């Protein structure tokens, strides 16, 4: 299987909102579309999914135009939405049905994902109330049957989307993307607005999907998350591709220039002497920018020569965040 995006361009009147975006995914993994707000990420995704007309270009899945008929796509849109006044279960079965999943199969999958995303209490409100009502009945001994009957509540009404918190709504929306067991999963800002616990929950599922051999396209402003999952990236700035390729290779091309150094005394004079740029310092923990491995080793030699104990010496490539900021310049202030 492969995904090919060729020369995708979009104009609104005279304004270009995307210029010649091309990339290929020839093996499963995560491809990141990065950029500042308004750079063209969501437009690219919408064009890939056929929601927006293209001025030029094509999107191929296994050599055929990408379509719901040719590819099983799961999509978590940037604009999250659910029918506010409809029962959650009805909505999930509907979305599954639209993707060709039978009602019986959909119910099985909903059960699985509800447990996985910890939203069972909203999708099966009666299941939880039955369990809770059964417990006191058992504890009360011979009077249990009577109390059980008294405690038995009338069936809870199905939960509606607008009764859920934003995070839980996002979980339901994530379920709609996953319910058809898609080959290609497109996630537009999947982790925005989630608390750390739910962020981890989402990340674990994304990891499982990668392990299952799925193709993922992810758009995010959270560089650390992208770095955690993505193998290849495209950085867009003002509708143009400014950087593209394999993330490791991009990083390698920058060289190992980030030095984290932890010592037990002030080493500022050594840093100055070695010509290293000091970025931050906190309780003798230094973040430094070096020109290369030679300069870093020179600084280390100076410290060892003067018998200064070195607790941490970590020489790394630049982070994606730094690369992003460098590439998009002043526009990066909007990224998280």
């Amino acid at each position, binding site marked *: 299987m492969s995904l090919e995006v060729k020369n995708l361009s979009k104009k609104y009147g005279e304004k270009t909102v995307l210029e010649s975006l091309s990339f290929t995914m020839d093996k499963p993994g995560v491809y990141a579309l990065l950029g500042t707000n308004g750079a063209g990420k969501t437009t690219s995704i*919408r064009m890939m*999914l*056929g*929601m*927006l*007309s*293209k001025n030029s270009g094509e999107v191929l899945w296994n050599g055929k135009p990408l379509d*719901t*008929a040719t590819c099983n*796509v*799961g*999509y978590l*849109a940037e*604009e*999250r*939405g*659910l*029918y*506010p*006044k*409809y*029962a959650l279960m*009805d909505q999930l079965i*509907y*979305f599954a*049905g*639209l*993707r060709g999943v039978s009602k019986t199969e959909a119910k099985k999958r909903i059960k699985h994902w509800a447990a996985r995303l910890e939203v069972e209490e909203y999708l099966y409100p009666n299941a939880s109330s039955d369990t809770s009502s059964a417990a006191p009945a058992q504890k009360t001994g011979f009077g249990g049957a009577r109390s059980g009957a008294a405690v038995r509540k009338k069936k809870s009404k199905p939960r509606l989307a607008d009764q859920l918190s934003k995070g839980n709504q996002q979980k339901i*929306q994530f379920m*709609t993307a996953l319910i058809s067991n898609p080959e290609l999963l497109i996630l537009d800002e999947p982790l925005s607005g989630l608390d750390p616990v739910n962020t981890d929950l989402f990340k674990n599922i994304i990891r499982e999907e990668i392990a299952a051999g799925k193709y993922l396209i992810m758009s995010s402003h959270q560089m650390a998350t992208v770095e955690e999952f993505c193998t290849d990236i495209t950085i867009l700035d003002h509708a143009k591709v400014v950087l593209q390729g394999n993330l490791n290779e991009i990083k390698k091309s920058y060289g190992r220039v980030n030095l984290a150094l932890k010592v037990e005394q002030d080493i500022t004079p050594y840093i100055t002497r070695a010509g290293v740029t000091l970025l931050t310092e906190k309780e003798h923990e230094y973040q430094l920018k070096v020109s290369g491995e030679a300069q870093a080793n020179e600084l280390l030699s100076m410290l060892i020569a003067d018998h200064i104990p070195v607790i941490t010496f970590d020489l790394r490539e630049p982070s994606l965040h730094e690369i992003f900021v460098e590439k998009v310049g002043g526009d990066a202030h909007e990224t998280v």
Partner: protein
Amino acid sequence: MKQYKEQLTGTGMVYRFTLTQFLKNKANIISLVIMILFSIAAVPVSSLIGGEGSVRLHSTVENVYFDSCIEPYSLTGADLKNAADENPYWSETAFHSMDELNGAAVPGANDVFASILFDAETGVYQLSVTAAEDTALNDEEISSLSSFLAEQFDQARYRTLQISNEQLEFVMASWESGTQSYDSYLEDEDRWDTQYIVQLIYSIVVMMVSVLSVSYIVRTVIEEKASKLIELLMVSVKPLALIVGKILAAMTYVLMTMGGMILGYFLSRAVCGRFMTLAPLSDMIGGGQFNVSGGLLNFSVIFIIAVVISLLLAFLTFAIIAGLSATGCSSTEDTESATMGVTLLIMAGYIISMAATTSGSGTMAVITSIIPILSVFCAPIHFMMGNIGVGILILSWVLQAIVVILLAVFCAKVYTSLLMHRGNRVKLKDMLSMAKTSSAKGVR
């Protein structure tokens, strides 16, 4: 064709889901129950309130004690009994000669005395009907009895003179002249009344079906857009399938509502008919103010087909316009303005159809039956009344169907762009521009 088939994949799923949500919606359930209750209550309430205008199946007069002392014309209780046997309205009333009373009994609340005398001075027959002091009979009943007795007395007179019914018909035959005869005048009056009232009822039905459908379609489309669900849906289903599914669901729901109301009405009529006397349908349609001639109400199979086709075309026309109007909106605040334009169009169709009927002009009947939008209101009724032929009726359908197809093609061209639109309500000018762009590119 294949392209359209692909575009419509998933319509069934959208239809089922939308219809289920319509049926589950509390507000819809309440309105449906209220409308069905209204239609059920309409029968007994209109019969009770409009008792004066309603025609009972049987007279409530139980006994008539009759005396006619005019020689040589003889009308006896037995004659009246025979006449009453042939007239269902009087079949349950007992007619007696005054002799049977023997001067002893006091008439009951539903009994009357009746006598016919001849005033030699004035040369006038006098019919007097006397009811008891505590009579339960109303003026209408007594008046009907008077008419019946007078009619029977006239026939007795003719029988005495040995004039047969055929001879009488021959003698009493009216003149046909170049000018309008009185009978013709009455017939025209009946015809006008019938056409007016049938047009009124049909136009109200078209208006109800259209306005209800429009409100449901607008609401469901805007709700979906405002909920930011469009992108999620468009991954799985094509925009055309989305709108067609919704239109069909709204049509089914409205038909179910109307069917429920009609069923409720006739069920109520069947039940109420067991406990109270009801006016015939044609009298109820006329409401006592219009002479609706049952003979002119030609509810033939062709007429029913004509009504169904015209209603379907009306529904499709207004539904597509409503769908477009709603898709151009982005928030629920725009619901009213999206509905307003289509509702005004429906109202205009209704008003013009009524005005055309009032004019009574044959040319007007043809014109209003051909012009799209108006034709769905006018054509079936003009056809039933014989104002237009089958040819004009079919032409009106063809023209309206062309309008529906053009609207559907336009909808297919702009619907995707409209769905993705955010911001102010899209105007017609912008929609035309979108359609132009879509045609130029030839791609979605």
